């Protein structure tokens, strides 16, 4: 059983709040039922606990090394990967015809969450390979797919994403890697890529890089970017890895966290010729790369949740077992010390973590279910749901990576001095999680995306959907006795957010710089309203469950109601200060002269 994610919570969210069993009524997933979903999660629990978790601290301590020729990774990583691959997790989401298990994203992602909470940096290679394989599946020619895809699905070849360059990270418009067309239809690549995770390793037989580059004469900016498949070894006629292609490791980056995942600087075409194959059409590389952006941003949010969750579970266990001090009013020095979980302030720190990580887990699973619904659900609703998903994408990426990182900080605080040492996992979890506000579009970019684009797109239709969905939950909660207090707070918060949103969008048409200057503040407030809404949904389900619950289940549901109460009493009110600042179109940051820093 996983010690890093509470399986009772995962089951509650999947079956009692999201009702994933309804997906089995759709033709695509009609072979499944709760027993097969449970079996998948049980298997993930088992392999994560036995193969991934025991390796996590060791892998952090012994990060991969480059001896000038080869990269060496702790051998246990390969063993853990083999267990994962042999069990079929690489293709869990793939259709039956292609050898997969044809699972809904919600369930395959829930299984993924169990692995990533156990050891995210060992898992990352596999996640990247899946993404690269999915991309090949959508954009590769039949010939490319035939040659590479089965090997990526079977875990024989791994994959990477090569976007950033030393001078161009967040802004891809300025990349310089060039791809020159050859007579045989292939391309030769020249350039340097930076921050490439899994760019070199000694685990898989071959590495398939997905590389953004520009063809000579292409338009300037993002409209001139194309996507290429570049293997580390070119394949011979029999499909085996043969001749070395000109992709070379320059060096490894030495990171704060995620230390088990190599992060590389790669040169293309520096010494030997570097052959690449076009994916999709020339100049449409960014479209190909971001086709599955919603899913990759959910994945980053989910990764952040799982690290926060693991820290919460660890600090909770510690607080239950660590005796220290006596309660206020206890004056007898001979009385036994209490376990620290009895102290009100420790409870506060645990409840805050619980509210963040369980709220974040639901947010990520909710978005996964949206993706499943967009794919298979009621045709009349699909368009609405797709617009709503676009609106939530910056939230599901940024909110968990901000607040579940805060949860990691609180976990360290619960352990006190012990938490600050490397003898306990909570500092590692914090370091691992510190990546998530940075990659896959920094949270600053997510704020700009939300306020500058998403709330304004389609004449604000996405935002109108948000209002509609929230009001449905508010109406339900108003009629549910212990929850009507929260329904009112949420209604009030939503009205305030709507007023600010309207104010900012109209201000944007006059002065876009001023209107978006505080978009990160807007992102936080918006995220809190969304998560408050989702906590209310969790509370409604917990309230239903509580009616017939006994024993542990009663405690579980009461815990959900308490975390919801915490979120509404301690967290949600904070948005009103933030919205007031936004309403004033505050220019403190915008107009700060550089010279005055």
């Amino acid at each position, binding site marked *: *059983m996983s010690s890093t994610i509470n399986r009772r919570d995962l089951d509650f969210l999947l079956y009692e709040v999201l009702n994933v069993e309804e997906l089995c009524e759709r033709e695509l997933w009609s*072979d499944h039922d709760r*027993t*097969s979903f449970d*079996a*998948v999660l049980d*298997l993930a629990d*088992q*392999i994560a606990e036995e193969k991934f978790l025991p390796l996590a601290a060791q892998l952090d301590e012994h990060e991969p090394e480059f001896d000038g020729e080869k990269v060496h990774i702790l051998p246990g990583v390969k063993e853990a990967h083999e*267990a994962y691959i*042999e*069990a*079929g*997790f690489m*293709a*869990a989401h793939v259709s039956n015809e292609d*050898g997969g*298990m044809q*699972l809904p994203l919600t369930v395959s992602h829930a299984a993924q969450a169990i692995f990533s909470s156990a050891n995210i940096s060992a898992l990352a290679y596999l996640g990247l390979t899946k993404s690269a394989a999915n991309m090949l599946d959508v954009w590769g020619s039949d010939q490319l797919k035939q040659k590479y895809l089965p090997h990526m699905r079977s875990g024989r070849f791994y994959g990477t994403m090569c976007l950033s360059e030393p001078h161009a990270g967040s802004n891809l418009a300025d990349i310089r890697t060039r791809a020159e067309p050859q007579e045989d239809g292939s391309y030769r690549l020249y350039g340097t890529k930076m921050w490439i995770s899994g760019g070199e390793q000694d685990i898989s037989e071959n590495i398939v890089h997905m590389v953004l580059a520009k063809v000579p004469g292409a338009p300037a900016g993002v409209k001139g970017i194309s996507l290429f498949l570049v293997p580390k070894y070119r394949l011979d006629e029999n499909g085996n890895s043969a001749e070395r292609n000109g992709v070379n490791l320059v060096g490894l980056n030495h990171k704060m966290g995620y230390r088990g995942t190599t992060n590389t600087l790669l040169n293309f075409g520096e010494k030997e010729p570097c052959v690449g194959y076009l994916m999709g059409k020339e100049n449409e590389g960014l479209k190909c790369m971001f086709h599955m952006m919603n899913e990759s941003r959910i994945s980053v949010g989910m990764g952040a949740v799982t690290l926060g969750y693991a820290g919460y579970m660890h600090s909770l266990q510690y607080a239950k077992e660590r005796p220290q001090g006596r309660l206020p009013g206890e004056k007898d020095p001979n009385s036994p010390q209490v376990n620290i979980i009895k102290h009100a302030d420790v409870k506060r720190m645990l409840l805050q973590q619980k509210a963040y990580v369980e709220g974040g887990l639901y947010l990520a699973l909710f978005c996964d279910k949206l993706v499943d619904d967009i794919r298979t659900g009621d045709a009349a609703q699909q368009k609405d749901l797709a617009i709503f998903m676009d609106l939530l994408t910056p939230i599901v990426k940024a909110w968990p990576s901000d607040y579940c990182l805060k949860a990691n900080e609180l976990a360290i605080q619960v352990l006190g001095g012990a938490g600050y040492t490397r003898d306990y996992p909570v500092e590692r979890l914090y370091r691992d999680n510190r990546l998530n506000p940075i990659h896959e579009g920094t949270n600053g970019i997510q704020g700009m995306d939300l306020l500058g684009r998403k709330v304004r797109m389609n004449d604000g239709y996405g935002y109108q959907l948000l209002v509609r969905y929230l009001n449905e939950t508010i109406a339900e909660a108003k009629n549910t006795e212990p929850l009507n207090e929260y329904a009112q707070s949420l209604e009030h918060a939503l009205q305030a957010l709507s007023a600010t949103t309207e104010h900012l969008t109209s201000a944007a048409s006059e002065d876009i710089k001023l209107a978006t200057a505080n978009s990160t503040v807007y992102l936080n407030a918006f995220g809190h309203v969304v998560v408050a809404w989702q906590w209310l949904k969790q509370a409604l389900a917990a309230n239903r469950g509580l009616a017939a619950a*006994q*024993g*542990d*289940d009663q405690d579980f549901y009461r815990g959900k109601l308490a975390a919801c109460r915490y979120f509404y009493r301690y967290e949600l009110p904070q948005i009103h200060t933030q919205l007031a600042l936004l309403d004033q179109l505050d220019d403190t940051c915008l107009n700060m002269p550089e010279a005055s820093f």
Partner: protein
Amino acid sequence: MKILVAVKRVIDYNVKVRPKADGSDVDLANVKMAINPFCEIAVEEAVRLKEAGTATEIVAVSIGPKQAQEQIRTALALGADRGIHVETDARMEPLAVAKTLKALIEKESPDLIIMGKQSIDADNNQTGQMLGALTAMPQGTFASEVKVADGKVAVTREVDGGLQTVELNLPAIVTTDLRLNEPRYASLPNIMKAKKKPLDTTTPDELGVSTEARVNLLKVELPPERQAGIKVPDVDTLVDKLKNEAKVI
């Protein structure tokens, strides 16, 4: 060669076991259940014999409530070919289990019966031996190695003094010890395939077996909580306490 494997539904080994409030039995409400670890080893051994070409069919049997079908599905996902569920809500004692298995053996005529040496819930370690007596089949218990050849099975047994190898004529009964093998993980495709494998159900009544309990369960309670240790000032006090308080010397 046909192999019959018995699998039992028990509390997952990770779960901390608690008695019911009234002390009448172990509390199973909302507790994670799993296949008994020794039975999992039995399934793995059968699957290996099939992979080696020695066995042709593996039948997994479980006796227990409706939900015991989950454990049969697990065995099917690990590689068993079909399942038989003997449905009963009775508290099955080893003798009743052995009689039920005997009835199934008469129907199925397996060449080899592999089962766990004991289940981690009741820890009786009796069923295999009782089944041997009831069927007059030879038995090799506590197996750490199993080799089938020429109508015989050589079983290496883990005994107190070391290892003992016995050779049994088939059909025979083998009970597994922990070191026999390391069970594989089920794979996701096999979990899906297992859903489509045949699973027959029957009852002890239909098999003509009585499930009547022969042992009265009086009470289930937790062992006394361990007290904190103390420091003793000298050896004399220690000896005194060992003699008079702990009464161990």
